[in-house]
């Protein structure tokens, strides 16, 4: 909060409405505004009404399956919308309520499992979608209330630990639910298979159409997203929404003002849980199965990364964060795309750090030269230590970065460790030492990325997510679209 001073405080000419406290009325206006031409653009964009953005999004989202009709793109699109929904729900709890809910994914699981139990051959029940989905949403809210109750008197940390434990417990119950007093409820580790697809008035929505992912589910998901978005928007603009935000800003002040703090916390919690449960039904109806592993802490961290990256508190922000993070995770699965992504990030990072200056030219030239030098030295010692690729970007690249034909495990482990130490050191150095340290660090990062991380996309994806969370919290805790308020003490 100390590094940036407000450059321009935007205060409107007209006063607050009659009967409204000035401080409260201007609550949303106490935010930092960027100066200069970029600031004008930002203000214009922010001035556009929210529904205009929503319409724009709806139009763009419905065009995607038309432009690109492959099943893969549709499936990724559907998953993205599911994550957007999850992010919207978590935003209510974390962004508006300011509560750290680490059991959020359990509510997603509760929705998914309840749907699977009531709409599958497991118990021969086939509730119509119109009944099941609203009922499960309410169930989700009630479970949320129940879990929130024990922590009602306690600070955010205790809530975090109770909810995190609830997530663990949910996984335990789901995994061992095939032996609850001799009854098989959840199918254990094998999950529940053969879950019904969505059906509206006797008309079933097939999951596959001509062998590829049916586009109808994508549209259902987008429609649901729009409905939830608008509904939550109205809640946020209501009395309850304002109360939530005041709770987040200062629980003590809110309590002194006579707000029912505990009840507000519980409602925020339950609302988030309801959205998660609702999302769970949709995801389950599509995949026709549920497994305990679908609701692991990994998913939780992913959704958190989305909310934090987009900017917790901003609905558009968290939706954008969901798109970015899910696309990032998809790209990281494919080595070719992940490779391009990495170098793109390095280039963008270096440019934003140095702007267009002589330093930038020096650092880039040194990095490129260093790479060729190392490559020349290494391949002169042993040809197999630096294999040359054949075509495309990776072919060109293989003349620069060293990719041994076979890598001893300890080389990867040592270089990874050295890279982390070097990267941490670079953040501490200033001036010329930093400039000197930067090219070798970048080169080492490229080496590690090519040789250690790309061959293991599984852990790599989550290492990137973890780093994203740490870096974001330090560099830009308000995310991409989140507001940064001016603190007046």
């Amino acid at each position: 909060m100390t590094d940036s001073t407000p450059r321009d405080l935007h205060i409107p000419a007209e006063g607050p409405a009659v009967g409204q406290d000035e401080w409260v009325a201007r609550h949303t206006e106490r935010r930092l505004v960027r100066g200069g031409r970029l600031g004008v653009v930002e203000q214009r964009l922010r001035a556009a009404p929210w529904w205009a953005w929503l319409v724009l999004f709806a139009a763009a989202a419905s065009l995607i399956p038309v432009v690109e009709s492959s099943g893969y793109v549709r499936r990724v699109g559907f998953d993205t919308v599911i994550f957007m929904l999850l992010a919207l729900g978590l935003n209510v709890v974390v962004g508006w309520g300011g509560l750290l809910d680490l059991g959020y994914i359990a509510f997603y699981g509760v929705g998914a499992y309840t749907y699977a139990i009531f709409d599958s051959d497991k118990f021969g029940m086939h509730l119509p979608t119109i009944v099941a989905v609203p009922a499960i949403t309410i169930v989700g809210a009630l479970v949320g209330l129940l879990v929130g109750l024990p922590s009602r008197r306690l600070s955010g940390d205790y809530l975090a630990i109770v909810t995190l434990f609830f997530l663990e417990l949910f996984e335990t119950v789901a995994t061992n639910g095939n032996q609850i007093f001799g009854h098989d409820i959840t199918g254990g580790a094998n999950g529940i298979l053969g879950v019904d697809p969505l059906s509206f008035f006797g008309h079933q929505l097939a999951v596959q159409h001509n062998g590829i992912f049916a586009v109808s589910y994508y549209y259902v998901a987008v429609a649901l997203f729009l409905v939830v978005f608008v509904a939550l928007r109205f809640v946020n603009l209501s009395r309850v929404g304002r109360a939530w935000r005041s709770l987040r800003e200062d629980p003590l002040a809110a309590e002194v003002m006579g707000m029912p703090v505990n009840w507000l916390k519980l409602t925020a919690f339950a609302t988030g849980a309801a959205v998660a449960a609702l999302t769970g039904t949709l995801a389950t109806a599509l995949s026709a199965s549920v497994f305990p592993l679908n609701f692991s802490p990994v998913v939780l961290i992913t959704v958190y990364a989305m909310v934090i990256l987009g900017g917790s508190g901003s609905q558009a922000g968290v939706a954008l964060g969901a798109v970015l993070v899910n696309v990032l995770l998809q790209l990281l699965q494919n080595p070719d795309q992940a490779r391009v992504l990495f170098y793109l990030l390095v280039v963008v990072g270096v440019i934003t750090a140095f702007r267009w200056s002589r330093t930038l030219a020096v650092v880039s030239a040194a990095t490129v030269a260093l790479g060729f030098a190392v490559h020349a030295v290494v391949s002169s010692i042993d040809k197999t230590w630096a294999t040359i690729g054949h075509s495309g970007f990776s072919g060109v690249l293989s003349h620069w970065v060293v990719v041994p034909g076979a890598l001893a495990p300890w080389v990867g482990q040592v270089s990874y460790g050295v890279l982390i130490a070097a990267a941490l050191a670079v953040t501490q150095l200033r001036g010329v030492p930093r400039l000197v340290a930067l090219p070798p660090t970048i080169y080492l990062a490229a080496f590690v990325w090519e040789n250690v991380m790309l061959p293991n996309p599984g852990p790599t994806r989550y290492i990137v997510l973890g780093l994203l969370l740490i870096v974001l919290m330090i560099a830009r805790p308000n995310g991409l679209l989140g507001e940064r308020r001016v603190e007046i003490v």
Partner: protein
Amino acid sequence: MDTFIQLTVDALTLGSVYALVALGYSLVYGVLKLLNFAHGDVFMVGSFIGYGALHALGGSASPAVPVWLLLVLITGAAMAGCAVLGVVIERFAYRPLRNAPRIAPLISALGVSFFLANSMQLLFGAQQRDYQSYALSGGSLYFRGFDIGAVHVPLLRIITIVSALVLMVVLWFLVNKTRTGKAMRATSFDGEAAAMMGINVDRVIVFTFILGSALAGAAGVMFGLRVPTFAAVGFTIGLKGFTAAVIGGIGSIPGAMVGGLLLGGAESYTAGYWTTAWSDLVVFTILIAFMIFRPQGLLGRADIRKV
């Protein structure tokens, strides 16, 4: 009765591991009011360092040094490694967030936890690492020991429990009888006032992380000597350790010990008399019960918040 004794020995072993982890949580929470989610993963790294040191010294079947020295060395390596790791985590992930809203370091801690667990998996794979403690000096750590009735208590269990106790006593001494410990207690009581009295709060925090992480490292080795370790183990153990800290009263050192032993007991008796599948359920129920009836924990004091 034999089953009971057997389970009690198990409970004490498990409980001392939990207690050591809980102490790390408690110490950090005391001075920073931060729930250090990465602590469980520091524990995991400790168990891996112990495994690495064990193999560097020739493996458990044919160690290059006497067994007692081997145990001391691998525990020392894990404690030192974890202490360094703890300091690095504090310096780079938590210190920049010292004045940020409370939720910021928590999320950063989640990121660190995720980063550590997956980095270990990336570098060393997801497979289990077995210390093969039964191979140490031809298995004598197992068949030596003493008998209570028909129950045999292996020497290794006794070593684990006793060394955990020794570590706790050392910690108690450090916190209650040294100048730095006094500074820690002062910072924990009121950080701002401590800073005004000339206490270097940053140094106290670093010292706290060294202590807590070293204990986690020792716990990691004790865990590895009992069952195989793997990259994802930190999450669960961290959660149990934190629960132990809450049950005992967070911020209280004897509380963390009591909480750890209680939790170890709950888990081991549930597993022995009922089923292993639902031991988490029992732990969770205990946690909830404490949250409702005694949120300050067994030995903690209720917080009076002044405005």
